[in-house]
């Protein structure tokens, strides 16, 4: 009997130990599943890095070569300085494109969102419904007439068709900023009204500081979308000297007899600035994508 009394705490300990082992195993299995899946996503990317550092003869081998010998850092020098891929010039074009559209869309969408959320005027809610419905509008239906319009304006062959529309607002950004602005208490802006501030002052001094995270989200999101935009530059630009990086990369592939190692170096260089930005501002990237799902929730 007395030995039974002693048994109880031991059993408890054993039970706790077993539970610990079980959570250890399930967690281990979870990690294993996650590592295996993550490998599927990371290995292709790793191959981009590895191939960019190989000699040309080592790109396609059987068995595959994982560690290039020698590691040719000079591929980057070669790829980024050939006249076929003038990296710095392309980068300058990309930055111009990205910065201009980001400024355009952030400023215009903020102003429009302010009207939709803080001002009352006739037809506002109908107009907002139209705005929401355009978010699902497939780009294909406006593509050709828009091109013809820009052609008629003699804007094809330059950045105007790619940048000017950004200054007139973008449906998703307007929607998102409006959602943020409607949460701001009216007392804050009413106080400013009483002090004699006009709407521009209120927007700039009261609203903008409060929605800075949302503004960063749409900036980062637009930055990424424009950096990676291929179709717009493809149809509106027609000279290497005007191209942004992705178009330059496309031209590099078509103009040259393909040297895959250099092409991979150029590819990595094209996405590197974006990846760097991602690691600095990961929060805003993730929030931005998450918020695109907001419409569904």
């Amino acid at each position: 009997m007395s030995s039974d009394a002693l048994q109880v705490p031991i059993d408890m300990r054993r039970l706790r130990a077993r539970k610990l082992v079980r959570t250890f195993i399930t967690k281990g299995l979870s990690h294993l599943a996650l590592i295996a899946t993550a490998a599927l996503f990371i290995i292709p990317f790793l191959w981009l890095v590895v191939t960019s550092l190989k000699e040309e003869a080592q790109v396609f081998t059987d068995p595959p070569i994982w560690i290039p010998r020698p590691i040719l850092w000079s591929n980057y020098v070669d790829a980024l300085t050939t006249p076929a891929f003038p990296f710095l010039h392309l980068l300058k074009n990309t930055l111009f494109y990205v910065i201009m559209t980001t400024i355009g869309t952030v400023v215009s969408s903020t102003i429009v969102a302010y009207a939709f959320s803080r001002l009352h005027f006739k037809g506002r809610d109908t107009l907002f419904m139209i705005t929401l419905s355009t978010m699902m509008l497939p780009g294909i239906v406006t593509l050709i007439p828009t091109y013809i319009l820009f052609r008629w304006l003699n804007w094809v062959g330059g950045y105007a068709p790619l940048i000017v529309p950004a200054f007139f607002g973008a449906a998703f950004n307007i929607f998102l900023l409006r959602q943020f602005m409607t949460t701001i208490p009216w007392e804050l802006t009413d106080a400013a009204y009483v002090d004699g501030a006009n709407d521009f002052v209120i927007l700039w001094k009261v609203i903008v500081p409060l929605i800075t995270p949302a503004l960063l989200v749409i900036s980062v999101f637009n930055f990424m979308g424009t950096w990676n935009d291929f179709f717009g530059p493809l149809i509106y630009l027609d000279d290497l000297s005007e191209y942004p990086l992705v178009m330059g990369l496309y031209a590099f592939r078509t103009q040259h007899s393909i040297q895959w190692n250099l092409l991979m170096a150029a590819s990595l260089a094209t996405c590197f600035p974006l990846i760097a930005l991602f690691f600095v501002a990961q929060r805003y990237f993730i929030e931005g994508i998450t918020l695109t799902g907001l419409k569904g929730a």
Partner: protein
Amino acid sequence: MTASLQARPAGLKKPGFQMTRRTRESLTGYLFVMPWIISLLVFTAYPMLSSFFFSMTEYTILTPPNWIGFQNFDVMFSKDPLYWKSVANTVYYVVLSVPLGLGVGLGLALLLNQKIGGIGIYRTAFYLPGLVPAVASTLLWMVLLDPRLGLVNAGLKAIGLEPVGWLKSATWAKPALIVMALWGGSGSSMLIFLAALKEIPQSLTEAAMIDGANSWQRFWSVTVPLLSPTILFNLVMSIIGSFQIFASAFITGAGPLNSILMYMLHLYRYAFRYFNMGYASAMALVMFFVLVLFTLLVIRSSSYWVHYETSGRQ
């Protein structure tokens, strides 16, 4: 109201022209939305309406459009064999890539929705491919999917499977595009699903657990219904996106026997290579109506399978 007007400096009052605050607010409102109204008119309404006109013309940009009635549609439906090829290719691609994309996105989100360490690292790993621009990722996959010496076929051989021709084979070129799309696109749908999963109150899954539901039942009867609005959103967006697939097909060059000549690629060639804007507009219009139809069908069907929490609680 007068109090707030009197609070302003006297100099701002214009004698004889006193606007009420309401009128002033309206005017400011119209002024502020003006850019967007212009955008809607110039970049949405006008192009949409003029699409109808252009689709009825022969228009090569160099000469003014020439009215030809329904001829473009006639050519499209009965005289352009490549048109139907592109339709078939695109449908094949959409039918496979949309459910696979949703499945992988949701699967990754479920994997990440666990209480274990290092989630941030895994999340970054899944999302990283989404940062690679289409041109770069297509070039990379051309290397990976090389039929003779590509890494993917080496992997298939290593696990005892037959290597396939991928982009060099008429049969495997479409699956190759789907693999590429899954790699680049799963990260963002995963993030959207993950955010929705985090919204599900733990009390609900715990209650189901107490009622004796196993993890599969909890998934189908609790998680999926609560995720259904998000599934609907991702479904609509990925249908619209997949029908308009372009970059990967364009860069790899339509594939052997036009096996990845996608709808957008066919349209692009007519519009920007042959400058046959009338025919391309007709193609765009047909695609537009198909997409509107699909979107409406999916949204209509949603009353049968999408669960909104408010209605569920009655």
